[in-house]
């Protein structure tokens, strides 16, 4: 019997998800033994045409990381969906938009103007912006078109499973691969794999007390006690609004959870959940005092939706 075929692709991402796959260490050899890797641009030499020539649904599993930022990302998402039996949104960017999704707080025009014209380190001779078509002697060059805003993978194609994390933890990746290799029936489509069904707080070893917060601090402003809940100490920790599964890695290193595993089950919006959680622990009973405490929170939208802005209810900022 032929080995099952595996494809890995990166769209708008940093490459960390690919490193996470390699971080399963010597088990990568088991993966190479068990699967026939048919497409993995970051590690092996394949061309898009090789994929186009494959038969539909001939790839057994495709791990797709990265958000949909430009027309190339979308084109390959459609192509891989057509060729794959199981398409997995792998990592925060493919699942929820991830860090690139924070670009949804700016318009495409604002971004291009800053990067190509206004940023202090840019010397622009002709105020030129990148074009999708350019004529040279040899013919016309075409580059992908940057989209107006970032979308998660599920907004352009049907996704079978989601593996959250920035990046997904290697042991969780291995668990998923092992499960698939075991031949057990796959979970229902749309499931989140390689993660828990509680919140990050559930895995956190720190001691929690009754929270009463008078002031919020940014992590560099205080030296947090390593044994007490970070939120108790006034540091915004995304733990209460984040799915478990990472083993509370960040909080064990004395830094607050950043929310990369996405919203917990049955939660539609990570930021709304965080507002709900924080509002319960702010120790104030008058509008003035509440206003003053809320004023100590820097960049609420960027903190609460650091990884999930394009996946949230409102998805992006609009310019009136």
């Amino acid at each position: 019997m032929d080995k099952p075929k595996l494809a890995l692709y990166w769209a708008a991402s940093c490459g960390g998800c690919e490193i996470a796959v390699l971080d399963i260490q010597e088990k990568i050899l088991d993966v190479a033994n068990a699967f026939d890797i048919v497409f993995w641009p970051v590690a092996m030499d394949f061309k898009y045409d090789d994929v186009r020539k494959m038969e539909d649904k001939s790839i057994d599993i495709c791990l797709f990381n990265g958000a949909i930022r430009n027309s190339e990302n979308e084109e390959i998402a459609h192509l891989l969906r057509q060729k794959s039996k199981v398409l997995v949104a792998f990592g925060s960017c493919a699942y929820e938009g991830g860090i690139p999704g924070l670009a949804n707080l700016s318009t495409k025009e604002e971004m291009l103007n800053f990067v190509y014209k206004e940023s202090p380190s840019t010397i622009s001779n002709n105020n030129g912006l990148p074009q999708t078509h350019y004529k040279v002697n040899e013919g016309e060059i075409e580059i992908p078109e940057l989209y107006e805003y970032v979308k998660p993978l599920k907004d352009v194609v049907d996704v079978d499973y989601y593996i959250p994390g920035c990046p997904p933890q290697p042991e969780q990746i291995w668990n998923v691969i092992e499960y698939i290799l075991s031949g057990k029936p796959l979970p229902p489509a749309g499931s989140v794999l390689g993660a828990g069904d509680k919140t990050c707080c559930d895995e956190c070893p720190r001691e929690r007390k009754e929270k009463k917060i008078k002031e919020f601090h940014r992590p560099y402003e205080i030296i947090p006690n390593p044994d007490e809940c970070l939120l108790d100490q006034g540091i915004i920790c995304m733990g209460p609004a984040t799915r478990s599964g990472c083993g509370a890695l960040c909080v064990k290193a004395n830094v607050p959870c950043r929310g990369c595993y996405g919203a917990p089950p049955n939660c539609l919006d990570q930021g709304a959940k965080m507002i709900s959680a924080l509002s319960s622990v702010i120790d104030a009973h008058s509008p003035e005092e509440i206003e003053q405490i809320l004023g100590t929170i820097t960049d609420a939208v960027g903190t609460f939706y650091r990884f999930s802005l394009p996946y949230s209810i409102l998805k992006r900022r609009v310019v009136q």
Partner: protein
Amino acid sequence: MAFEPKIIGFLCNWCSYSGADLAGVSRIKSAPNVRVIRTMCSGRVDPTFILKAFQLGADGVVVMGCHPGDCHYQEGNYKTMRRIPFLKKLIKDFGIEPERLRLEWVSASEGDRYATVVNEFTEEIRKLGPIKHPSCKVKLEQI
């Protein structure tokens, strides 16, 4: 056709809903633009409900609860008192005018106050016009 604001009102069972009821039985006229949803406490109004209301096409959202100190569950309305200004900051970052979200305290005996709040808020939203966020596409008629 002239713009008629669609407003979602979350009213606490113990004070504000009774206040709205009183406005009704007292035959006080108020704008018909508020679609009332009764909740057991204003503290039951999850921030998700409010964002969802905007997403589904509401032009404004008003949350009404018992006056501070009068909460049937003692602390519920204080949570709301913190949530709403917090949410106002958040929707502003998304490009939605914070004035589209309002918090008001209306007791069971304040039928006239209910009517005043509803009328004022409706006029304010009428001036702001329809919600203009691209994620807020679905219109309430379709639900």
